[in-house]
């Protein structure tokens, strides 16, 4: 019976122990190890062993043009992708949020891009974007419209890649927004109807303000994901043409698995992690702020 007594006495440590061990082994340890590696000169190319060199890698980052370019491109890609996804996603959700024939069918079709394998998506878009033989330029040509180079042009590659991301991930924003819409209270709408609000006014003054928390969550999720996008970029361009689509993730991948500069690649990842983390923290802070100004009309409606 002593064993059972031990378990009883230490239950609050023993029961969470597996979860703690799991979190430590799979999350805390890898992060700490990456931080440690980023402070070493570990590089198979120069044959340097994983020995401590202090902040040397970070100093090198400051002067690295490719790194600075990669930061700019990461934000450029994310800005285009996330802003369009959120606007488009909320708009589609508002349209779908009413009863019409075939609604379920449309909703399921809409979710397909999200379920497809990213590499397969990249391959299909690669073929569609092909400047000479691809279907996109074929259609544009037959409509007498200019035919851009898409992912083969240094200036058009990031917007073209963002378009793929938009195609793939707008449905997720739709899904989250639909869930948010379903949970909205009905009384503000009844009040607005009594006050004689038009449907546009209802959307602008009631639905959107009440949806803000949902939209913030959707934006945050997409933001983190878009910053980290790797699969479609690497599969479609590998960072090219030249370095025109080399984002932070692609850059660190090149450093680690093409150049085998593990120390330097780790320092990129640590900086990248810090960027994503701080953006998430800012958003979490924004989310906690009560939407006081926006809640105004609703309060008026109740009075």
């Amino acid at each position: 019976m002593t064993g059972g007594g031990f378990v009883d006495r230490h239950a609050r440590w023993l029961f969470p122990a597996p979860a703690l061990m799991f979190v430590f082994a799979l999350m805390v340890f890898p992060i700490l190890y990456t931080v440690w590696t980023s402070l070493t000169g570990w590089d198979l190319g120069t044959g340097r062993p994983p020995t401590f060199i202090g902040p040397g890698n970070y100093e090198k980052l400051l002067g690295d043009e490719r790194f600075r370019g990669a930061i700019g491109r990461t934000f450029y890609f994310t800005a285009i992708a996330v802003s369009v996804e959120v606007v488009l996603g909320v708009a589609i959700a508002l349209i779908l949020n009413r009863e019409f024939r075939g609604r379920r069918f449309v909703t399921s079709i809409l979710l397909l891009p999200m379920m497809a394998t990213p590499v397969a998506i990249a391959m299909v878009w690669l073929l569609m974007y092909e400047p000479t033989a691809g279907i996109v330029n074929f259609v544009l040509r037959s409509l007498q419209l200019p035919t851009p180079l898409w992912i083969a042009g240094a200036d058009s590659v990031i917007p073209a890649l963002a378009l793929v991301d938009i195609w793939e991930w707008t449905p997720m924003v739709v899904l989250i927004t639909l869930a948010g819409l379903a949970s909205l209270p009905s009384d503000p709408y009844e009040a607005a109807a009594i006050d004689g609000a038009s449907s546009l006014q209802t959307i602008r003054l009631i639905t959107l303000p009440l949806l803000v928390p949902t939209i913030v969550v959707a934006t945050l999720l997409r933001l983190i994901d878009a910053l980290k996008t790797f699969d479609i970029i690497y599969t479609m361009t590998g960072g090219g043409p030249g370095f025109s689509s080399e984002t932070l993730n692609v850059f660190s991948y090149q450093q680690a698995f093409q150049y085998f500069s593990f120390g330097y690649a780790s320092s990129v990842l640590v900086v990248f992690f810090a960027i994503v983390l701080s953006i998430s923290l800012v958003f979490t802070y924004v989310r906690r702020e009560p939407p006081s100004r926006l809640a105004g009309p609703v309060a008026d409606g109740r009075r």
Partner: protein
Amino acid sequence: MLHPSRAAIAALTALSVIATACSSGTPAPGASGSGGKPYAGTTIRVLGANHPWADALKLLLPDFEAKTGIKVNLEQYGEDQLTQKLTTEFTAGSSDIDAFMQRPLQEAKLHQQNGYYQDLNTYFKDSAKTGSDYDVNDISKAALGTETVGDVLTGIPIVVEAEVLYYRKDLLQAAGLSVPKTLDELKAAAARLTDKSKEQYGFVARGQRSPAVTQFSSFLYSYGGDWFDLKTKRASIDTPEFIQAVTFYGSLLRDYGPPGVLNMSFPQAAAIVSQGKAAMYTDANSIYQLMLDPKQSQVADKMGVAPFPAGPKGANMYNVTSWGLAMYAKAPHKDAAWEFIKWATSKEIVIKTQATGAVPGARKSAFDDPQGKSKFPADWSAAAAASGGGRGYDRPLIVQVQKGRDIIGDVITTSIQGGDIAGAAKKAQVEFQTLLDSEK
């Protein structure tokens, strides 16, 4: 007290552990084999690339397994993924890889520096292990030289290739042009055969940052340039020869190439040719099937192969060992792995891989053999013969090859885009010199 069903589960688990332990016990080498099959029962792990050579060899593996009793587990990956897979497994130090395909010019120095290779001289020069019928002297000396880092033989050459000019016989003939023998003639012909309104392009070649470097090398050498001075270790990216060569290559692709060339490596470029959209194309002769095989090409019967055209300083194409077969320094089954490498690079098998895979190997006898040369068209063979004296490297001979290729490739893509070539070359010169200095 244990619950009855739990006891049953425990017993079952125990049983299955015992059963697994029994079945996984491999017989000791030589246990079941008589004199002819000393390694029967051994399983070796081999990593290969998604390459026609590996595909051809895969079909022949049952013969080897029947002959020796050695079971071969061949895993295949894309080129870059293979390098990654090898490097990560070797770095972790716990790999059970026995043999693997390597790109000597791309990674032999890097992997040798980190001690990943078994020196194959131990086997290659030991007549007891290699036997006289293997005929060491039949293998190209130059190819073996490429495989040698310091004194270490890192791999046995399996694929050799040179840069050639692929061209459309019908288009040149219709325009009254002869096959370009110089780069100037190439440019003139490309201009004549370009009609962008009809999506007909005079020339195509690789434009992707890193893949372009190797196929640009013959242009560079033919203009009298090089990556760096081997003796002084001084980079030569900003030399007039380099600038001229890269300007020529870039304008050829910009003015007479298809749109989107900046994203093209050989699969994309060869596809443009096989769809009949480009008249001329310079790339490795080992990929000729992509354009000359009727199953893969719409213009197979109209394609010709010629030696790489001469530049101001002559026709200095590369002629390199692009693939070798290597053994891991900590391979668990070294002797069985050597049996496999020896078999895969033997006269008999090289003839067969040339005949089925259409991949040029490193053995002289295979090109003399009627079956061994059956897959190569006459003009292909003539072009290969003309490339015999080519340079043994198509990329800088350094340890950090990929870093070097990316630095140099940036100048090439700048040139294709019509950007500031001198500025890009100056920047690349500094970066490449820093790279060279880090390896001193």
